[in-house]
């Protein structure tokens, strides 16, 4: 499985979750995850899964370009080599790619044509989140890069980790008919369940009768405005807030910003601040309200735990977060503070009225019927892609053990 993140950590995080579900279902399969995430070591790979980490690619131009650890061309060469040789020696039955198809398209095309040329039996899947971004931006970008042609040419299937009824990628992004046939909507990815007695220690020491607001910024690379505005709001309330907060800034937030926010949080009563926590879901479970950006994984967690949420998306093109927040807000799964409207006052108003529980408030239980069975469907897809087709339908082909007996590897 290939997961390349750009600013965040979402693709690698969900790829590891999916890998974990796959090895649980097919205990003998081996999965290698190829990731560029610098903090990939913070995630413990599940049993049956190991990680190959590739170097980062610095920006092509601009003041930062000269500060890259390894010069860009060489880093690209190393990445390509790592991908090709991993495929060559690991010889996977299935390759699943989760990355922005417009990011370094030449790199991916080279690797895909290598896989196709050398290992015609290896199945190739491209994975996309429920929505990629505003059709007005994605459409032109994808046609400029020839994304649909590339996907159609190299991939056996395209998995959309979402639900057609929520967002119809095939229609919105105008997939040509050939590609449209390869698309499978898997449903959203249910977050792991957290046993109720697992309460984070600092929460045990906190006030049990105060409602809990959880504020997270995902990876944190661009989470400063959200958290700064939230702390600003608390500073203005000046200790009179009737709730308590857990604020998680994110491991990719630049150290300087993180230090400032952490110091501000420290001076406030009833605020627990972390840069990184493996217990985000525990906090979420015990919270009454979640304030998040619009990242895919975070929304899966909010849906899984049916938490009222206020989404504070950014405006970064192709507006993936904004679109998701818009769509979810329209379905009344969550509240929304638009990028231009983010201020301590607007955020504070949303928090106070969400906690007061007015009739216009987010009703996450309305999302009850949306599928969160993504992991199960992915398992099904893997089984049908990897099991040899010559086995008769009524034979052992539909028995998961068949896969193990073959020593096949739904992976790279």
């Amino acid at each position, binding site marked *: 499985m290939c997961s390349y993140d750009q600013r965040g950590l979402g693709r690698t995080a969900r790829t590891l979750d999916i890998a974990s579900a796959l090895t649980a279902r097919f205990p003998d399969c081996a999965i*290698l995850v190829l990731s560029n995430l610098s903090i990939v*070591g913070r995630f*413990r*790979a599940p049993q049956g899964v*190991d990680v*190959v980490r590739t170097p980062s690619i610095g920006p092509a131009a601009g003041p930062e370009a000269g500060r890259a650890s390894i010069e860009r061309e060489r880093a690209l060469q190393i990445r390509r*080599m*790592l991908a090709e040789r991993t495929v060559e*020696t690991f010889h996977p039955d299935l390759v699943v790619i989760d990355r922005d198809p417009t990011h370094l398209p030449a790199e991916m095309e080279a690797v895909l044509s290598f896989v196709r040329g050398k290992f015609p039996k290896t199945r190739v899947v491209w994975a996309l989140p429920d929505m990629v971004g505003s059709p007005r931006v994605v459409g032109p970008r994808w046609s400029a890069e020839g994304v649909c042609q590339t996907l159609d040419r190299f991939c056996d299937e395209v998995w959309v980790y979402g639900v057609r009824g929520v967002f119809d990628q095939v229609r919105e992004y105008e997939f040509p008919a050939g590609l449209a046939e390869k698309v499978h909507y898997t449903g959203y990815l249910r977050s792991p369940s957290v046993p109720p007695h697992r309460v984070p220690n600092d929460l045990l020491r906190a006030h049990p009768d105060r409602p809990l607001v959880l504020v997270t910024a995902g990876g944190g690379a661009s989470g400063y405005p959200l958290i700064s505005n939230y702390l600003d709001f608390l500073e203005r309330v000046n200790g009179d807030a009737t709730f308590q907060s857990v604020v998680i800034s994110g491991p990719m937030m630049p150290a300087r910003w993180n230090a400032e926010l952490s110091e501000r949080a420290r001076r406030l009563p009833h605020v627990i601040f972390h840069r990184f926590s493996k217990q985000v879901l525990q906090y979420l479970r015990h919270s009454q309200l979640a304030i998040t950006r619009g990242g895919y994984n975070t929304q899966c967690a909010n849906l899984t735990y049916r938490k009222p949420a206020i989404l504070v998306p950014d405006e970064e093109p192709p507006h993936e977060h904004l679109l998701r927040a818009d769509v979810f807000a329209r379905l009344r799964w969550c509240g929304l503070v638009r990028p231009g409207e983010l201020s301590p006052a607007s955020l504070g108003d949303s928090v106070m009225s969400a906690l007061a529980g007015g009739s216009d408030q987010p009703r996450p239980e309305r999302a009850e019927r949306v599928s969160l069975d993504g992991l199960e469907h992915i398992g099904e897809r893997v089984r049908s892609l990897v099991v040899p087709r010559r086995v008769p339908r009524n034979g052992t082909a539909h028995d998961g053990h068949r896969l193990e007996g073959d020593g096949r590897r739904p992976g790279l």
Partner: protein
Amino acid sequence: MVARGKRLLIYSQDGFGLGHLRRNLNIAYRVWRSQPDVSVLVVADSPAAPFFALPPRCDFVKIPTLVKVDSGVWCSDRLSLDHREVLSIRTRLLEGLVESFRPDHVLVDHMPHGIFGELTGALRLMRRRRRRARIMLGLRDILGAPAEICRRWRLEGAYEAAEQYYDGVCIYGCADVFDLVREYEFPASIAAKASYCGYVSREQAPPALDEADLARMFSQRHDGLVFVTGGGGADASFFMDKFIDAVRLMFPRVPFDAVLSTGPFMHPEQYMLLRKKAKGLPIHVTRHGQDNIRMLRRADLIISMAGYNTISEILRYRKRAIVVPRSGPSAEQTIRTRLMGERGLFTVVQARELTAEGFAALIRRKLDEPRPDDRPGIPDMDGAANAAERLLAATG
């Protein structure tokens, strides 16, 4: 002479631990300080890599993990693959890395041709290149019992590899503590290119914990601070358990607060047990090792195992310490503590001799000792600087 714009490749083979990686990043940091234009690529195999902050101009590649289960016996960490299959992936990736990164300088830590000779192909490729890379072997002060190391090196052809492929050998220790060249019977050809660099310790360390940090860990502060660490933590629970017994014995008249850092690799169940056991005592139990150096700098007494980096940091910051060496499978820690204990650099206790009473008495006594300021027995601690200089020396 200068190595501007050059590339350094570091092979850091840790398996499950982080010790080699820590030391290599200390050296990489020093490389950046003296030659900010050098770009460094670390090839790591620890599942937790990079774990520590990377120095500027340094990036890393992680290859699939192989874990040492016994002397000379390896298996894959999580993959349900035979170790030979993992090995063939690693071998190919390592060869590819020397071809695509084209390093000018190479540091191999610490097996001359890697696990099962996985580096041989890469080393050959580099030797065949027209512009030859300068290839250095890095060895920590003590690898293990001399008889065992000599046997393994002979068996695996490590002497030949060291002779054939390397321009030099950096020993991160001192001959007057442990004369590695003699103890491991290096032939004259290797001895001639080996040099002792001194101990490598943290080049750039974050500041010691301050009172505000401590106030967040302890509701009520005592005067002293004891820091208990077992490095990665895989086998540290035994002496930590005994430590909690000792504190329980002193309770309620405990003259210190203690931070017990289990390390990221301690089994979660053991970690939970320690946590439970420490309830009600002035002991803060934590998992993450990232802040260890800050706690160590602040502490009045360190209680630790005898891993290379912890010992270096104890020496560098002139800390009082009680050291409980790991007894096996390798004799590395036993030898290190014996030699340094004889110099009076810290107090050594064997795990099997630990009793709660004895431990408690020892802790009280150590806390009353004067700080080991610049006593004469402290070995050369400039290892990172010396190693960086040797690494970057002119190529060819």
